[in-house]
């Protein structure tokens, strides 16, 4: 059992935008780590599997070494950390693509027998759709994938994604809109409709 620290909501502004250049860096970064490492590890693991074990530590080490470059006025510590992690992920695109291909191929759970049970059918649909989505994610530009997954998996809002990637928030919104539209059409390309659907 682990406690995942609530990221964001309800925390004070000083917590969201800490002064990282203060006199007790071990305490400041210890706190930063405790607050963000769990969700960050999970995000990284969803993207590149076991590599996350190394990348989460690397992210915080880089954060510490480049703490002078963090400006609380320009973004939250969380955006900044996910920005560092995004740069690290760029070195592992092939690993990510391999993982997505594997997820796309993963054997589906036995559908059919329980089709009459709508809840089970919905779950089957969700995992079938997840496999199709994995396939479609492979085709995305890395930058588009970052925007989509920083939003959908890491739970960053548009402003935070903009801070993390260093791009205008308008660009984030239009990119996200375009990517989602593409996935809704493209990912469903090979889906076979269930009989009686709609």
């Amino acid at each position: 059992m682990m406690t995942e620290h609530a990221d964001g909501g309800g925390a004070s502004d000083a917590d969201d935008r800490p002064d990282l250049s203060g006199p007790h860096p071990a305490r400041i970064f210890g706190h930063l780590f405790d607050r963000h490492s769990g969700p960050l590890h999970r995000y990284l693991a969803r993207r590149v599997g076991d590599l996350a074990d190394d990348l989460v530590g690397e992210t915080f080490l880089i954060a510490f070494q480049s703490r002078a470059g963090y400006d609380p006025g320009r973004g939250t510590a969380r955006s900044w950390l996910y920005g560092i992690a995004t740069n690290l992920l760029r070195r592992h695109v092939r690993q990510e693509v391999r993982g997505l291909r594997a997820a796309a191929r993963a054997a589906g759970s036995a559908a059919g027998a329980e089709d009459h049970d709508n809840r089970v059918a919905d779950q089957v649909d969700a995992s079938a759709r997840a496999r199709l989505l994995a396939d479609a994610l492979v085709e995305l530009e890395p930058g588009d994938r970052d925007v989509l997954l920083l939003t959908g998996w890491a739970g960053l809002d548009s402003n935070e994604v903009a801070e993390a990637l260093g791009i205008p928030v308008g660009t984030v919104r239009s990119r996200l809109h375009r990517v989602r539209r593409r996935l809704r059409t493209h990912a469903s390309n090979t889906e076979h409709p269930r009989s009686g659907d709609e």
Partner: protein
Amino acid sequence: MSDHDIRRVWTDDELDSALATLRADVRTAAPVLAEARAALITTIEQAEPARGKRPRRSTRRWLAGAAAVAVLVAGTLLVQTVSFGGPAPATAEAVQTLDRAAAQAIGAVDGPVGPGRYRYVATHAWWMGSTTSMDGREFAWLSEHLQETWAPANPEDEWLLRQEITGNVQWVNSTAEEADAAGVRTDSRWPEGEWRAPCGDFFGGSDCEDPGSWQKPTAQWQAGLPTDPAALYERLRADAPDDRGDAALLTYAADALRSGLIGADLRAALYRALTRLPGLEVTERQANLDGRVGIALGVDDGDRRHDIIIDPETGLFLGERQVVTDWLGEFDTGTVVSFTSVTTGVVDTIGTQPAG
């Protein structure tokens, strides 16, 4: 025929549910984050005194490995509630044990190293590794990391460091057969090999100007410490980080003792200083560490207990260990999550081990 015949555009909800489902089964093992946190904090603490100097990358890496276990005590994901219920001093038995060890340390068996000879220190550190197998089972093990140091009588002469992962493994929550069947690999990124440098500065290039610390107790640093146990205790309290309560003081003392480079007088003073440590108690009278038996004294930080183990006959520091006291069900209470044994000797030639 055409794909368009069967194309159906997903709704936003369908896309969201696919996103939420895809690779949602990843897990985070607490020890992974504990290690990362320990490495981070160690790096920061190593970097602090050297602020403004050239970064010393490889030093940090080595120290991160060596000190990881010591700092692992800190816990990571868990909200720490360290409470010692007021200023309870070390128990009477702990005080007695430390006083006796201090008295013996003065007539120490490990006398000074003569000119041209070397102090040999072997540290067998059993550190925890863990992984999640394909079927979602968590495996944890202790893996033996051997570190041998040859320290010359004159510290400005050449030192030698040898590091080796011996391949010896003790499984913590499974059998070797189960781990084998699950294809668990116990790889470690700890650097192996041989390094030589004056002043024992194998990775730093400080030109023998490293002021030293509890983690790197140079002769110069030892000479600057107070000899009075009360003053030494205050120094320990001032130097140890204040985010882990009194357990941090024991960890710092253990860092220095573990080096094997602490002189007998300082060791005695340090034992006497530790008699002031709140919450310190004798936790086992016959603690077996790698076949060597001594008295264990420890402080519980709320999740884990850090024990140092002392030979009551000679006052020698035998090693240390960490034992789970309440780690939210991750491991059973009493599980040893790391231990380190230290042996020292004197040899005539660099690179040779003491006889027997």
